[in-house]
């Protein structure tokens, strides 16, 4: 394939034209406008009045920095838990167990639920009086009075994270399970002959084989989790007292609730830069295979 010299053919442009027209209209134009808007009130005063004031305000704003830290906390915790739980379940499903198909379907099921609905269901379970969680903990003798999972600023983030982990880890599990199944049997057989322990097999065969997939799943998950909006919005709307206001929620509220278009755009641009920085290795890795 590689040795065959392919000639330049401009017909290709016609085939990709509709795709790039849509990308230009729905992604390109809004992106450019958002970047411009973060420097000037373009919607009211046009392109004059360029200023760095909005970024200056941003970098002096504790609300922004707290939101940034919260985003790191939310993304870090959910991605780490997705990975750990995803790997453990993938390993369990890859071992010689009965009813594997059944367990596999059950393991994937939460991921099939839209994140908005996952948020609603968990909010229902977290309900202080009529929810399942407080009742279960009460019956087990672990709590004496109802816990306000979503109204207590200190508990709300872990509660939201738990709901997200429930929905999010099956994707990582699916990717890693596919990776596990692709590891050649011979490698394990050779290790057996050499008398390797299960731990050694895991460290020197399983993990190195999974490494590229773990990397890809991590990057994809970081990007998705940083953009997460619906689950948090239906559970808390970023509250109470901003306790779950991650950057995507902050930017949305600034734009659509308070109409601070310039400030909201600056927040979104920072968010986009973070995501692109994280995503570039992923794009490189994929482009190399073209």
């Amino acid at each position, binding site marked *: 394939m590689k040795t065959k010299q392919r000639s*330049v053919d401009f017909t*290709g442009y016609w085939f990709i034209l509709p795709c790039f027209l849509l990308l230009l209209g*729905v992604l390109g134009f*809004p992106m450019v406008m958002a970047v411009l808007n973060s420097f000037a009130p373009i919607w009211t005063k046009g392109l004059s009045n360029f200023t760095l004031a909005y970024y200056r305000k941003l970098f002096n704003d504790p609300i922004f920095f707290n939101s940034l830290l919260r985003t790191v906390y939310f993304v870090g915790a959910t991605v780490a838990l997705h990975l750990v739980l995803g790997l453990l379940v993938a390993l369990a499903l890859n071992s010689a167990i009965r009813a594997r198909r059944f367990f596999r379907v059950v393991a994937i099921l939460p991921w*099939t639920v839209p994140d908005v609905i996952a948020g609603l269901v968990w909010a*229902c379970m977290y309900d202080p009086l*009529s929810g399942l969680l407080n009742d279960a903990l009460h019956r087990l003798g672990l709590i004496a009075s109802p816990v306000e999972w979503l109204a207590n600023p200190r508990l709300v983030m872990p509660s939201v994270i738990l709901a997200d982990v429930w929905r999010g880890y099956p994707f990582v599990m699916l990717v890693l399970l596919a990776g596990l199944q692709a590891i050649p049997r011979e490698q394990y057989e050779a290790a057996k002959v050499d008398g390797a322990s299960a731990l050694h097999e895991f460290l020197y065969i399983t993990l190195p084989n999974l490494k590229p997939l773990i990397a890809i799943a991590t990057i994809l998950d970081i*990007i998705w989790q940083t953009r997460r909006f619906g689950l948090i919005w239906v559970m808390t709307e970023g509250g109470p007292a901003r306790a779950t206001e991650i950057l*995507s929620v902050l930017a*949305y509220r600034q734009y659509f609730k308070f109409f601070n278009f310039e400030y909201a755009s600056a927040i979104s641009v920072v968010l986009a830069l973070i995501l692109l920085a994280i995503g570039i290795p992923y794009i490189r890795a994929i482009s190399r295979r073209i």
Partner: protein
Amino acid sequence: MAMRALLIRGGVYLFLFFILVFNLTPFFWMLSTSLKTDAEVHAIPPTWWPRQPTLEEGYKKVLMWTNFPRYFLNSTLVSLSAAFISTLVGALAGYGFSRFYFPGRSFLIGILLASQMLPGVLLVGPYFKMLAKIGLYDSHLGLILAFSTLTLPFSAWMLKGFIDTVPHELDEAALLDGCTRLHAFIRVIFPLITPGMVATVIFAFLLAWGDLLWALCLTTTDSMATVTLGLSRLVTQFRVIWPQLMAGSVIAAFPPMLLYLFLQKYLVRGLTGGAVKE
């Protein structure tokens, strides 16, 4: 040695049992709540199994008293349209990238892949302004175009992968028979990449179905709302009526659940850029 192996096996099953409970409890609670009466939901202590399972309070009321059927219809219309546009345009682009070498090809592929990284909150504001200017705010067309495009990178990339596996000789034979490039694409490639197109249709459908942000920002009339938006509005009312909300959630979660289970292996392949081969 045998004892240890048994212990490990026991540990694996115990772990899977916990996972079973963790994964299924929310589904159980959603179904259970949807079958209760509003009075029973507020009983203290809460009942785990509905005393008298009933469809009257949750399902009937959410279908008869709220705009839920309308939301469901809207979501179906918007998601299906977006899915077909995304797949069709994605297949054309996939063919362009798979079969032709032209200046800027790898740069454009880079753009295509990078566009997946952009956060929705960056785009949705100016897109909203743009729609308002051309009179498409609060319309389904604005939503359909948004969802078609948001899923395009995935569709194009995934279908390029499928088209790569179709031998060049097949379209060359069609060209020799006097077909144009477009004809060759439609007659020869289309039938051979049907599984890939089914996968991208479903994927785009699911993304559009599950979205909240874009529907929240681009529509305002209640009769234009999608299921996720409609349900999220039920929860922010003064008093949440859980049986109705959970009944709506069960209905809204049903189509994606079926589609996901059907699609899982393609999804993993598409999202990891072919790093996993199943």
